[in-house]
């Protein structure tokens, strides 16, 4: 690998890390869209700086970008504070005005015949290959500022982001903190003009934190994870765009970022689609099994025998034949039901206990709906069919206390197990 390529990787990595770190706060303050407007608004600043100084050195264009980005952020706040427009309208207005101005200036610069105007269009979608060592030093400086501020002011930034009114009430200099966060955001976005381009830079601000949020509920972890995602995608995207020559860098980095984000949305613990789907599937399996136990209990209660064939189960409750087989297999493995000879099923001691619990919850809930919500008897059954599967032991205890140890449900059936509880007291 050549040295110049190493500089490109280092530069992209720094841009990805800094913007992911400061982006975490923008994301939590629900200001991602402001980031998008600011990114687009860098363009006129870049082109004006070029026209004024007729140079393409990054730090000159960077200062121009910084100024127009800050102006656009200020204009968003000014418009939403001093007009009747809502903040999303203010964001849209600022974005479109600055960006169209930028495109107009860009076209003018390209037709100006200035000797070194070629390549200006790369500021739209980015071209990392143009990165020089001194540019990387600039990014390193920006990152030092961003991470320095976040580490030094972490408690204040956290408090301000979570509860600005409380922050102000304890005398925190809110205006100053807000300025500091805004400035760092513009700085991070402006650092991407060359490698990523103004059109897509906003994704650097909000994609990594959005993905990181799925994995953790601690702010510090979220920021670290967000930085890691920013780093990995920047390096990955830069690598791909380098190996497929002529490919723009910014879009590739963002595709990497989005792939990581999609992976997260799909597979993150608790919040991800997969784990939510799995939770639903487990609950539905549990429901089916509990229904088998309950039906066996009802048959016992009704006919006074212990053993029943599949057909009696099917007759009392319309099971799907295949699902019934699956539930029975699983219940037998758990030792909750036993099978004798020619497919006669019975509840084991443990299974009986479990079945009594489910029937108890069903009847308790019916009684609760009947007495506390004044629902008529014939309205409570369907509701209890669903709720019996989700009542936790704590809720059960609260129900029993609330209903004062009831012995029978609204249909005058016995609520199993309550009589024993009373004796224990």
């Amino acid at each position, binding site marked *: 690998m050549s040295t110049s390529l190493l500089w490109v990787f280092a530069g992209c990595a720094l841009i990805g890390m800094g913007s992911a770190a400061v982006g975490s706060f923008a994301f*939590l303050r*629900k200001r991602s869209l402001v980031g998008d407007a600011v990114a687009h608004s860098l363009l006129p600043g870049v082109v004006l700086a070029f026209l004024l100084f007729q140079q393409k050195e990054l730090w000159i264009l960077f200062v121009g970008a910084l100024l127009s980005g800050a102006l656009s952020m200020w204009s968003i706040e000014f418009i939403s504070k001093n007009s009747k427009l809502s903040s999303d309208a203010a964001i849209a207005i600022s974005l479109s005005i600055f960006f169209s101005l930028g495109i107009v200036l860009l076209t003018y610069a390209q037709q100006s015949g200035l000797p070194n105007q070629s390549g200006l269009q790369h500021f739209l979608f980015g071209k990392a290959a143009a990165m020089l060592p001194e540019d990387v030093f600039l990014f390193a400086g920006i990152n030092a500022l961003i991470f320095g501020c976040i580490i*030094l*002011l972490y*408690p*204040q930034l*956290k*408090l301000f*982001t*979570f*509860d600005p*009114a*409380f922050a*102000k*009430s*304890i*005398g*925190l*200099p809110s205006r100053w903190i807000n300025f500091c966060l805004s400035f760092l955001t513009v700085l991070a976005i402006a650092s991407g003009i060359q490698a990523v381009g103004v059109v897509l830079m906003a994704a650097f601000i909000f994609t990594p934190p959005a993905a990181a*949020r799925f994995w*953790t*509920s*601690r*702010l510090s*972890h*979220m920021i670290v994870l967000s930085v890691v995602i920013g780093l990995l995608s920047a390096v990955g995207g830069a690598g791909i765009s380098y190996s497929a020559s002529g490919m723009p860098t910014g879009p590739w980095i963002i595709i990497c970022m989005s792939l990581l984000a999609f992976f997260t949305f799909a597979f993150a613990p608790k919040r991800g689609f997969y784990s939510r789907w799995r939770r639903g599937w487990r609950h539905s399996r549990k429901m089916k099994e509990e229904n088998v136990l309950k039906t066996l209990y009802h048959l016992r209660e009704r006919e006074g025998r212990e053993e029943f064939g599949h057909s009696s189960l099917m007759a009392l409750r319309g099971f799907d034949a295949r699902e019934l087989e699956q539930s029975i297999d699983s219940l037998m493995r758990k030792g909750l039901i036993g099978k004798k000879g020619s497919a006669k099923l019975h509840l084991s001691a443990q299974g009986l206990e479990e079945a009594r619990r489910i029937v108890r919850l069903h009847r308790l809930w019916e009684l609760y709906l009947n007495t506390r919500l004044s629902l008529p008897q014939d309205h409570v059954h369907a509701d209890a069919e669903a709720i019996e599967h989700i009542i936790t032991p704590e809720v059960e205890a609260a129900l029993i206390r609330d209903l004062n140890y009831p012995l029978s449900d609204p249909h005058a059936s016995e609520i199993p197990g309550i009589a024993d509880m009373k004796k224990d007291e």
Partner: protein
Amino acid sequence: MIALEAHNLTVRYNKQPVLWNVDFSIPAGSLAGIIGPNGSGKTTLLKAAMGILGSDSGYVRFFGKELDAVREKVSYVPQRQSVDWDFPASVMDVVLMGRYRAGKLLGRLSKTDREIAAEALEQVGLYPLRKQHISELSGGQQQRTFIARSLAQQADIFLMDEPFAGIDAASEESIISLLQSLRSSGKTVILVHHDLHTAIEFFDHVVLLNTRLVAAGPKTETLSVENLNATYGGQLTVLNKIAELVRKQEYPLREKNTKD
């Protein structure tokens, strides 16, 4: 001693005046309620008192001093719904925020700070939940988290915005007894509250508000039928019209910026 004094306070919210020349004081050691219907300026009053909103005229003093001089003695509990409870933080994280001080901007929290926060959590009965993420809390638990943060500030005067809104009966009871014990230890507690029914038995000092001050004083003297009718009987028509005019035309409320 006077814990809080509002003098000739006029404040607007979204350009429209919602408090007109409000004047009252609350004695130290009382459990006071600021009572009025929706849109009567209760929340605005608290925010203006805490310097979160600017005022067009007048001032609020705590123990006879400007807020900046006694800030550490004053604790503010915003409305529970004013923050995003999906924010990545634990219950303990939020309570520890009560230990931050504007003065020590770069200071870290000490062991004592953590002990104080833990004790505050104990007082509201949430210590066992201290490591839980705040999005897992019920409404009542969220409110108790906010109150624990406020206790952790170890203030002498507490301003709470609707602490009973949308919480379960058990949380309400535990908050009430907590506030009463604060009062008996000599603290001043001032609540914004919209439910008249519970207010009658609970407060010993009330401020009746409906964009203007209707009455303020000890409960027995203030809660008359006449005052309540004036508070809940709708806003003054002419006053409202003026407020609308001020909002639409963006008129100033004082010729000069005065603090009278």
